[in-house]
């Protein structure tokens, strides 16, 4: 039988991909692990039970991150869907589409620094609302670009057909456009949630340390050289996207393919 390296290479690749995540989970359950010890002095769920203590602030950061990301994902997906229609059907579509790329010309940190004066003047500096607004300014253009492919000639024909069948704009939106765009809406919601969830630069500048999302918390723990809590907060950071990825795969991607 011919010897094949393929299974070994595949196994190696899987191990390389899975190892950092598995190691992170192990690290989140360890403490007092010092060189040259092969195993940690403590291995158990103590760190995880600490999540609920107010001292670490992890649970409050987790809830705050969820609230911020859901708000950003919901508002940017919905407004992106509605406004992309106007942009796509506008005679100056190309100009408006070009403008939507503007926030991505600058790095988020530079973009936030440029806008910080306006946030200060409007009293949004250092507040969760300010962070939501700042992250929206990044997620919204993404949603606009994402939905621009949806508004094509066929969708316009669906709209016109519904109008001649007696439908008003609200009925067209609720009974035709939303069901037709369901898959894209869910994917966009997922993507904008991720943009917000992992956002660091904008959040750290506009939040000025007062708005401690989970991503900010991870960096704080790492700066403090607290690897165990850093690994723990990374696990928490990964959990919602994994859940959303599962929902998307189970209910959206499979139906789209």
């Amino acid at each position, binding site marked *: 039988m011919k010897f094949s390296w393929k299974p070994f290479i595949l196994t190696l690749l899987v191990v390389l991909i899975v190892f950092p995540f598995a190691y992170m989970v192990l690290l989140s359950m360890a403490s007092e692990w010092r060189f040259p010890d092969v195993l940690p002095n403590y291995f158990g769920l103590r760190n995880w039970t600490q999540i609920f203590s107010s001292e670490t602030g992890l649970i409050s950061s987790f809830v705050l991150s969820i609230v911020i990301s859901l708000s950003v994902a919901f508002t940017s997906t919905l407004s992106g869907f509605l406004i992309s229609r106007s942009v796509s059907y506008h005679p100056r579509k190309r100009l408006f589409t070009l403008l939507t790329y503007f926030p991505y010309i600058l790095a988020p940190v530079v973009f936030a620094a440029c806008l910080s004066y306006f946030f200060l003047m409007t009293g949004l500096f250092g507040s969760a609302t300010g962070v939501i607004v700042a992250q929206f300014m990044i997620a919204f253009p993404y949603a606009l670009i994402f939905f621009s492919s949806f508004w094509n000639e*066929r969708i316009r024909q669906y709209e016109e057909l519904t*109008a001649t069948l007696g439908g008003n704009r609200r009925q067209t939106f609720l009974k035709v456009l939303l069901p*037709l765009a369901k898959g894209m809406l869910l994917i966009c919601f997922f993507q904008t949630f991720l943009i917000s969830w992992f956002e660091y630069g904008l959040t750290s500048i506009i939040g000025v340390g007062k708005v401690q999302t989970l991503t900010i918390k991870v960096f704080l723990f790492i700066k403090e050289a607290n690897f165990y809590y850093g690994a723990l907060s990374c696990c928490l950071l990964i959990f919602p996207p994994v859940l959303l990825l599962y929902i998307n795969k189970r209910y959206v991607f499979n139906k789209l393919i």
Partner: protein
Amino acid sequence: MFLEVKNIVKSFHNEAVVRDLNFSLDAHKTLSILGKSGCGKTTMLKIVAGLENADAGTISLGGKNIDNVKPGKRNVVYLYQEDLLFPHLNIFENIAFGLRIKKFPEKEIVEKVNAMVESLELNGQETKMPHQLSGGQRQRVSFGRAIITSPSLLLLDEPFGSLDAGTRQRMQEFFKSLTAKYQITSLFVTHDLKEAILMGDEIAFMQSGRLKVYKDKTDFINDPVTGVQNEIGFWENLIPGKVERETLRK
């Protein structure tokens, strides 16, 4: 006259697309309109449907001026070349769509849809999704969805353009029987010469935004601009003497 279109003019970016459009149509009749791509047929239909605004002119339907009536209130249904069935609704719900948005009682919807399914010869297909039907069946559902709302006027923009020759012929016959049964008034736009002659009670030819309505089919056939004479000439060259007699007989 049931439908009266007077002096309609439409331009896009200073380019005249529809020029001085005038025609009228009796109730329960079909006017077939022949024209090449880009001659202004679709724009004309969209103006009648209220989906485009005319630069000048008036349209009256059933004796009422509908110039300022919104598309949803005109009771004029526009059908495209594509069947445009809603992919998220099954066949029953696709046909019921117009009745649901007009908020008909549920009992009446069920009765009307079942009767329409019968007329469309689609019994047993009600729970299927659009992608499970053939092209001809989908087009029938599309007609049913429009006709069930009892439109005053049906506008058909090359409805059989995407079908193969055999299905197209069956659909032409089916459409004729359906319009007779439900007493539909319609404008039937096509670029197929034979289809234009077959489908219309009256016939018109559109070229460069101008519409010419013929007194009868013989008048249409004898006009060299319609291309019928070229067609007869082509076939006569193949089978001398036979074609002209048969075409005129039809």
